[in-house]
């Protein structure tokens, strides 16, 4: 397992400002998701959503090493990836509410946010549904002679889907600049991953010739360092890699999954929330290093809160698309 003490280029050059920016990004993801839950409980959001709370260090640590023209693909639990790659909360909330002003004009919803401006090829409601897309984006980058890369985010549940192995094989053969980021949050819906995942996760990717690593997904510095190294490698034509980020979702599989004790204990949840919180871990380190103090964190918190509140207001007030738009955008 790679730790934050890694002496990788990405890490050593990182300045205090960058760490604080990452802190803010993690706060943004968390507060965004809290607003989503609020919208759900207030019955303002149609359908369900899958919150990313607890996993913020993964999306932020990875996306902070990416350029705007790098690609990502994301999952049903995709708000964090989307925000970390640069999307604005207002248009995201609008999408979650099915409004015209949303990233997909309300046609996509929570599980399908996509945005060419930030290289977001789209969240995906099919488990492992985007692994081909990310790999294809890496193929384009290579064939078109660009040096951008593609990052494919997925939960450990996607390890069950064969298409992942199909595309890893191709990526390895064709040396494509793609990084498969497996967010192992221990559960696929309501089942512990050990009941559905045999053998050894990184070994699966290594057997296909990918560089495979694991990292503490609660430690944004570790994620940033390791992802940075793998992304850099891909950019310099070193080929595809696979990164397991060990993490945890604090809340239910989706906003409606309230009673969870039949599949995991409150103690387990508490342990992660109190001992392994990615925001707290980074904040503590910044304080210990003398790089920031609690007033800064408070300011960030209140700034982001205000931003999210405004974004929600925008989305709630925004109009729905007119019904005649249903038939638009079917064909380009």
């Amino acid at each position, binding site marked *: 397992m790679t730790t934050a003490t890694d002496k990788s280029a990405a890490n050593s050059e990182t300045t205090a400002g960058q760490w604080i920016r990452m802190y803010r990004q993690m706060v943004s993801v968390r507060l965004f998701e809290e607003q989503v839950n609020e919208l759900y409980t207030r019955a303002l959001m149609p359908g369900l959503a899958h919150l990313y709370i607890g996993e913020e260090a993964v999306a932020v640590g990875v996306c902070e090493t990416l350029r705007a023209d790098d690609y990502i693909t994301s999952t049903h639990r995709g708000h964090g990836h989307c925000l970390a790659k640069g999307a604005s909360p207002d248009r995201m909330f609008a999408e979650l509410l099915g409004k015209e002003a949303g990233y997909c*004009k309300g046609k996509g919803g929570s599980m*399908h946010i996509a945005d060419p401006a930030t290289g977001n090829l789209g969240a995906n409601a099919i488990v492992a549904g985007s692994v081909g897309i990310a790999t294809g984006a890496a193929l384009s980058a290579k064939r078109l002679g660009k040096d951008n890369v593609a990052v494919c985010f997925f939960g450990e549940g996607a390890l069950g889907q064969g298409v992942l192995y199909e595309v890893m094989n191709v990526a390895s053969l064709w040396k494509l600049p793609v990084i498969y980021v497996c967010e192992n949050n221990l559960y696929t819906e309501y089942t512990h991953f050990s009941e559905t995942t045999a053998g050894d996760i990184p070994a699966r990717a290594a057997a296909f010739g990918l560089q495979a690593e694991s990292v503490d997904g609660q430690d944004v510095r570790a994620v940033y360092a390791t992802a940075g190294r793998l992304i850099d490698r891909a950019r310099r034509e070193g080929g595809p890699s696979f990164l397991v980020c060990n993490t945890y979702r604090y809340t239910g599989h989706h906003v409606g999954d309230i009673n969870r004790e039949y599949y995991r204990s409150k103690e387990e949840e508490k342990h992660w929330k109190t001992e392994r919180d990615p925001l707290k871990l980074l904040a503590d380190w910044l304080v210990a290093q003398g790089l920031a103090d609690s007033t800064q964190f408070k300011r960030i918190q209140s700034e982001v809160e205000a931003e999210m509140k405004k974004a929600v207001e925008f989305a709630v007030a925004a109009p729905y698309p007119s019904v005649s738009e249903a038939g638009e955008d079917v064909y380009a």
Partner: protein
Amino acid sequence: MLETLTRELTFGQAVREALAEEMRRDPRVCIFGEDVAEAGTPFKVLSGLVEEFGTERVLDTPISEAGFTGIAVGAAMTGLRPIVDIMFGDFITLTMDQMVNQAAKVHYMSGGAWKVPMVMRTTLGATRRSGAQHSQSLHAWFSHVPGLKVVMPSTPYDAKGLLKTAIRDENPVVFFEDKMMYTKLKGPVPTEEYTIPFGVADVKRVGRDITLVATSSMVQVALGAADLLEETGMSAEVVDPRTMWPLDEKTLIESAKKTSRVIVIDEGYERYGVTAEIAAVIAEGAFYNLDAPVKRMGAMHIPIPFSPPLEDATVPTEKSVFEVARKLCGQA
């Protein structure tokens, strides 16, 4: 005949009761799927089964729709009677090879030597605000495939009786359940044992002026439309084919001959969907008795949009059926 005790059950309860009874009756019956055991599926339709039958017979699988469907084919050939649970009907995309190239053909290709007594239970239906990858009704595909049987119950009574028949059938049967009905639709179900044969349409309401052929979720819509029509003095017959294959052409054609006007209503995409087959069968079989062209009403030919006002516009409603019926009878 003895008086039969009945109770009101939801659609989901009726499905569960059929499963439990058949599992008690035949120890070879087992269930595999994602989160089917302790979680009882996200729809909670299977709640309680693992407690009664144990994890040897109610098996949580990895997220591997193709894999576990293929395992079911082999298990069915060799002495078990598996029921696979495909959470959202949209995921049948992943099982097409196993169902179509394997399950459907084993019996024929082996000259009758092997058989595949398995059931795939899956869902259909939109308006749940679940987005384009969780809202499709793709039963037309399987209906097109010789070697499969396709069942589409529309009431708790039918669900229970048809599912029991499916489990006892010696062939691969695909059983589509409207996910919106699980908790929303209640209806009488006898306490006594019963099964419903395949290939027998059910006249859900007797009428005179127009036939509404409706499947699954659209049966309630058609019944609602029939009520509206009655208020205007028109008498609509509602016929539910119940199984797409075998298809009870006779009952459909007879009803069409009697009323001389027909609308076929189904929640799948209208283009190249099951309404086409049923309309073609009726247009041919009742050719000399029809006073108007057979009308078809299916889902709009677009991916299902997330935004509520758009999504609601994609599916036939009581009102839209009512209006088409009025027009077809020259009343509007």
